[in-house]
């Protein structure tokens, strides 16, 4: 892989980036060899994003040198970076839905005469590039008709056909289903065969172990190691390097679980759900586990009254109303799947976010008691360990883990007896994950009930007392967590296998 005679595709030497009061990237030096998949890992706040922003020209380094193919490189914009052969695939999709695939691929590179687009070999070239990496996409299709994964491939194809030697991918699988991830990996491998270097950033360590050639680990802004993945002994070593300690997620049976039924759902059905019935007990953490489209979010939203559903839901002996307002009043709170768009008011401060579900109770005759708000905010920032220098910080400026803690605080502050957590640790780094699990366990130990909706088996096996397995809108099986669970059996159930889990 490492060719001594060829200069690395991209290298950084003594790179430093200072923010007021913080050194986000601290003297980082490493090289990325050509035609490799180079993975970049680290917890949130380890300096990955800052490093990437410097590489793509969005930020200027305080000190240090970046080189492309051995030549000094100082980009001032994404455009500069692209001209130096470095393209970036951001987490958000940057395609124009209203244009065709071909128009998207050539956007900004069109050949024109007197301002009018003329036919050129560019079009043939991009069509060919697209056909090489993903032949199933029709170049004349409207982009709005494509799936998220296909849109991503359009972006990759655009980067590749614009002559990029290095393509940086920031969490490219965040919105993809498993099958689509496989397809993306195939595309990435094809790119590598064509001498393209891929810098791959992901929280999902399995992906990195599957796909990567070389890994660079960052921690607290510092460069920890760069080495071939063949020399890394599995994910535990990766995690050790990332957080400097081992992550233990083994489930231990909890004593706070009671037999008192808090919520009882019977025969929930809608366009996806098929006759789903279950009970949740006081003090219990239950998990709803299934693959994409199995119905976990639908169940969460139904319990919260956000979606219409037939069947009955009884909470603490009372039927639950069918609006979120009634659910909150009854003592149910939902931490939604999409933190940034559904859970947080990103333009408000931490202080303003926390009491949002509870403002009525904090008011005298419609006049808001701001001292209560202040106390609550200070309390929860401390209780949940939200890392911030001020409760007046806008939540959009927090890291993913801290944002999620603010959402949790918001729900906790509403005095809910039942918390519905839909993918509470998505996009959250490993350290913050553990902290969130601890918060969940403490809550349940205090006598609250928690329903965890997740597509990560590791997560549900780590903290849930009982796990409901979902497949295509049906509740297939219930398992009681404990030692000696066979994950193959669980997988069999959630992928539609016939054999049930016996326990």
């Amino acid at each position: 892989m490492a060719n001594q005679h060829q200069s690395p595709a991209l290298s950084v030497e003594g790179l430093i980036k200072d923010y007021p009061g913080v050194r986000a990237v601290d003297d980082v030096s490493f090289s990325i060899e050509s035609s490799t998949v180079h993975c970049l890992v680290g917890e949130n706040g380890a300096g990955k994003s800052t490093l990437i922003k410097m590489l793509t020209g969005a930020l200027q380094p305080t000190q240090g040198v970046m080189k492309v193919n051995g030549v000094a490189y100082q980009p001032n914009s994404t455009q500069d970076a692209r001209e130096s052969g470095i393209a970036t695939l951001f987490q958000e999709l940057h395609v124009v839905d209203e244009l065709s695939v071909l128009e998207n691929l050539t956007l900004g590179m069109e050949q024109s005469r007197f301002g009018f687009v003329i036919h050129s070999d560019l079009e043939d070239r991009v069509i060919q590039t697209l056909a090489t990496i993903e032949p199933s996409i029709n170049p004349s299709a409207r982009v709005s008709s494509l799936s998220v994964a296909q849109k991503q491939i359009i972006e990759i194809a655009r980067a590749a056909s614009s002559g990029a030697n290095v393509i940086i991918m920031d969490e490219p699988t965040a919105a993809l289903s498993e099958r689509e991830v496989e397809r993306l990996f195939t595309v990435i491998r094809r790119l590598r065969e064509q001498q393209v270097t891929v810098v791959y950033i992901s929280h999902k360590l399995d992906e990195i172990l599957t796909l990567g050639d070389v890994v660079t680990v960052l921690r607290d802004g510092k460069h920890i190691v760069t080495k071939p993945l063949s020399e890394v002994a599995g994910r535990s070593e990766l995690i050790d390097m990332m957080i400097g300690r081992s992550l233990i997620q083994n489930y231990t049976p909890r004593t706070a679980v009671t037999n008192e039924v808090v919520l009882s759902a019977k025969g929930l059905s809608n366009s996806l759900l098929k006759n789903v019935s279950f009970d949740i007990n006081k003090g219990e953490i239950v998990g709803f586990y299934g693959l994409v489209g199995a119905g976990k979010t639908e169940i969460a939203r139904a319990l919260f009254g956000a979606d219409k559903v037939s069947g009955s839901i009884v909470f603490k002996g009372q039927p639950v109303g069918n609006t979120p307002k009634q659910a909150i009043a009854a003592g149910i709170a939902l931490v939604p799947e999409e933190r940034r768009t559904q859970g947080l008011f990103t333009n408000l401060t931490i202080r303003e976010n926390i009491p949002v579900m509870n403002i009525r109770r904090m008011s005298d005759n419609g006049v808001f008691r701001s001292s209560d708000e202040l106390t609550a905010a200070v309390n929860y920032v401390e209780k949940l360990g939200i890392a911030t220098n001020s409760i007046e910080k806008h939540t959009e400026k927090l890291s993913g883990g801290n944002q999620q803690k603010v959402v949790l605080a918001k729900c906790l502050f509403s005095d809910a007896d039942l918390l519905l957590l839909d993918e509470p640790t998505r996009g959250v780094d490993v350290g913050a994950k553990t902290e969130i699990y601890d918060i969940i366990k403490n809550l349940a130990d205090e006598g609250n009930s928690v329903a965890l909706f997740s597509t990560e088996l590791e997560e549900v096996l780590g903290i849930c007392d009982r796990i409901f397995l979902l497949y295509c809108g049906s509740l297939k099986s219930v398992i009681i967590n404990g030692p000696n669970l066979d994950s193959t059996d669980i997988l069999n159930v959630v992928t539609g296998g016939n054999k049930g889990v016996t326990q």
Partner: protein
Amino acid sequence: MFKSTTYNFSRTVPGQAALFLRNYYIYFVLIAVIAFLSLANLDRFELFERGNFLYEKNIINILRVSAPILVLAGAFTLLMVSGYIDLSVGSTMGLSAVIYAMLAINGVSFWAAFSITAVCGALLGAFNGLLVVRFKITPVIATLITLSLFKGIALLLVQDGVSAIKSMGDLRMPQWFNDYGREGVLMGLPMAFWVAVGVTVVLIVLQNRSLLGKYAAATGGNPTAAKLSGINTSMIVFVLYAIVGMSAALAGIARASFMSLGDPLSGDGMELTAILVVLIGGTAFSGGEGKVLRSFIGALIIMTLTLGMLTLVPAYYQTLVIGAVLLGAAASNHFISRKDHAS
């Protein structure tokens, strides 16, 4: 262990019927409006020849009156496709009408007056563009400011106790001033209408064939993607504002000519008409989508309806009826696109 997965909202491909409806519904609406008005009793007012709505003179009359909105609709569509809006078009129209009339009454030739007014309109539009892209003022607010500003200038120019620039005493409007919007030059239709057709054709070609058209769609569809593709979106928006300004000036010229005077208030309410016309043509408020030709047809629908209604119901019902029709159009459009976007 295996990977976590998340939702993927893949859209269904719209059916042939839905696509056909989406692309051509506007023509059916136009035909329906004309059919309805033809069937209704139309011999009450002298505006239309007796008996038949589809009578040559009726059509000519409608198209003559429609010239201002027809000339404006295309440029307005492109601006909305790029995700921006101009509320000052009515004031730009009024100011242009005043400038044009002042030039005409003071003996400037047609071509000189026409060109100068068009350039003034483009400059007014460019000023809007400057406020929006250079000074980063929200489009709605920026153009509300200029709505007031431009109208103020127009009123100042007219002053001296008269409400508009018109033939008075020794100062007579030249014959060409009135002819432009009234006298048939081809197929019985006046110059103003043919200019609108010409402008629309140019804009259709621009939209479908030029970088400006493509980049306008990209800017409205996904501004970040456009910028990351190296498109100077600010320049695109600036140019579009200038084009809208120029089109508004041409609309002002057509209106002034039709009314035989330069009235500073002659464009009042035009911004709403323009928005309605573009929306009925299927352009999304959110940008990215929309076609110049469809807005042109949309303008014909609105004007046919407005004028046709004059013969059917008292004038004070007009606005309500138009609102109802628009509601129907919006609802059906919503229904069609919802089918298309169902996940």
